[in-house]
């Protein structure tokens, strides 16, 4: 608290006016530069974290030569990529080959603009909202911008004129658009509860009637799986499946252009984690208290909510890596059938269930507080049990033949042949 910067901040009265134009513009620029820098540093540190965590999971040391405990490794990697020779494949489409990494890099680093990351900060000049631009279209902006990332990948794959790259780019685009539908549909229950698409309103709703992970558990699972697929991470990393496609869409890329794809991947991970936090884990909300959501706002509240936000964010980032070094990769047909045949109808049915539940609870006169959250949670436990305990039972995605006995498999095969469907249609 003795930092000179903090001396400029003061405890706020409840009705702090928003900033005038110039201070607002300056604070916007500060937020922009600080978060952009944090993103770049986070992307670098996450590459190290990934290697350290993988080492930990596989009982190795990981990078430990550059700097104390390998801490300078990302810096060395970045510097190396910056001064490496650039290669241009002879038959590639030069212009697109050059533009593709930038097209992948840009959406990854502008998506965060509408995500709120702390309670409003009171200053001498008025209230500073800790979000770069709380635009009215809010969440729609994220859906729109994050899907632009696929252009960079598909153009990289096509312009390289390399078979691996082409396949990687195609796979990636098909995968990303498939899971975007499930992702969009999983967020409809969220906007139904909030009655708004701005992320600030979604955070406030969760502060008052319980986090959406409690009230909309299944939507959270659908969104999380879709987010993993959208960021091309294990178990959905088929676009860059190293065992079959070398490095996928960036096989031909070297030096800084390769780094761009890497930064974009990690920045997308951070954004997806921030989005899961904001939509389902209450964003910067501190659980079980409304103290942090109500004025008067203070520097302490801002700092604590920032810590809460970053804590939830780090959990998801760790989850990304944990899953990467735990689960094997899907086969492509499994990935597509999971997206289209499982997640899409599930999300659609869930919208109907949640709409009916909201209607029913309102008709019963359940107030929108912990009672509402508990009723929804009870419903969600039933739904999750039906999905994972009865519908799924570990057989939706995994090859059935690996899980059931030979006799049972033969019986199912004859059943499939006897049915009216042709074997092709039953996937036999």
């Amino acid at each position, binding site marked *: 608290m003795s930092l000179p910067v903090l001396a400029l901040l003061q405890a706020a009265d409840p009705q702090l006016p928003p900033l005038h134009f110039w201070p607002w513009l300056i604070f916007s620029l500060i937020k*922009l530069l600080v978060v952009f820098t944090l993103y770049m540093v986070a992307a670098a540190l996450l590459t190290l974290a990934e290697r350290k965590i993988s080492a930990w999971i596989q009982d190795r040391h990981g990078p430990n030569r550059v700097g104390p405990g390998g801490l300078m490794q990302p810096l060395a990697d970045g510097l190396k990529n910056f001064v490496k020779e650039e*290669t241009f494949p002879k038959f590639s489409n030069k212009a697109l080959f050059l533009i593709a990494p930038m097209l992948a890099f840009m959406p990854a680093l502008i998506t965060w603009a509408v995500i709120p990351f702390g309670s409003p900060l009171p200053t001498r000049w008025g209230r500073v909202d800790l979000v770069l631009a709380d635009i009215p279209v809010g969440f729609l902006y994220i859906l729109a911008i994050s899907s632009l990332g696929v252009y960079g990948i598909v153009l990289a794959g096509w312009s390289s004129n390399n078979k*691996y790259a082409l396949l990687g780019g195609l796979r990636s685009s098909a995968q990303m658009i498939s899971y975007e539908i499930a992702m*969009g549909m999983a967020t409809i229950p969220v906007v139904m509860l909030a009655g708004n698409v701005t992320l600030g309103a979604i955070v406030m*709703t969760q502060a008052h009637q319980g986090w959406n992970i409690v009230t909309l558990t299944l939507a959270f699972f659908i969104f999380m799986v879709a987010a993993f697929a959208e960021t091309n991470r294990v178990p959905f990393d088929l676009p860059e499946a190293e065992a079959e496609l070398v490095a996928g869409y960036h096989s031909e890329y070297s030096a*800084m252009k390769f780094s761009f794809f890497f930064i974009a991947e990690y920045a997308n991970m951070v954004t997806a984690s921030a989005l899961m936090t904001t939509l389902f884990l209450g964003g910067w909300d501190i659980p079980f208290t409304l103290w942090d959501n109500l004025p008067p706002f203070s520097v302490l509240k801002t700092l604590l909510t920032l810590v809460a936000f970053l804590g939830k964010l780090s959990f998801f980032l760790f989850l990304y890596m944990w899953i990467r070094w735990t689960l094997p990769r899907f086969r492509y047909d499994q990935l597509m*059938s999971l997206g289209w045949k499982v997640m899409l109808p599930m999300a659609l049915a869930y919208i109907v269930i949640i709409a009916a539940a909201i209607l029913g609870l309102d008709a019963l006169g359940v*107030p929108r507080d912990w009672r509402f959250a508990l009723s929804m949670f009870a419903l969600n436990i039933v739904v999750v049990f039906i999905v994972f305990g009865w519908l799924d039972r570990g057989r939706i995605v995994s090859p059935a033949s690996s899980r059931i006995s030979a006799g049972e498999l033969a019986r199912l095969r004859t059943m499939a042949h006897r049915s009216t469907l042709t074997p092709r249609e039953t996937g036999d």
Partner: protein
Amino acid sequence: MQIYVPLLLLIGFVALNAVGITLVSHLITRGRPNPIKEQPYESGIPPLGDARERFSVKFYMVAMLFIVFDIETVFMLPWGVYFQRLSCTTQLLASGACPRGATSFFGFGEMLVFIAILFVGFIYVWKKGALQWD
């Protein structure tokens, strides 16, 4: 409109960074191209033919289905935002809930019709084998 200014600044700043970093990296590095280095990588063997060949039509199929279903999602978003207001015959309470006895099935029923039609189309696509990837 003022609220969009930081967004435009950010987009400009990131674009500047993307171009700037590429340019600086391009200027300080020296290319030493040779015919072997410029070949497309095919795991070490001499490249066979061109990569610009025909590829599976299924990728187009997925893209077409995506457009249809994504537009359904877009239609559902405004409904989702207005759902609580549509299913209430009076003003909503401050908490967003509908007062007891004022709930209406209007919004729910409308969407049920929409989702039912969508679902019939989905079943049709499924049974036609458009979602089959083998």
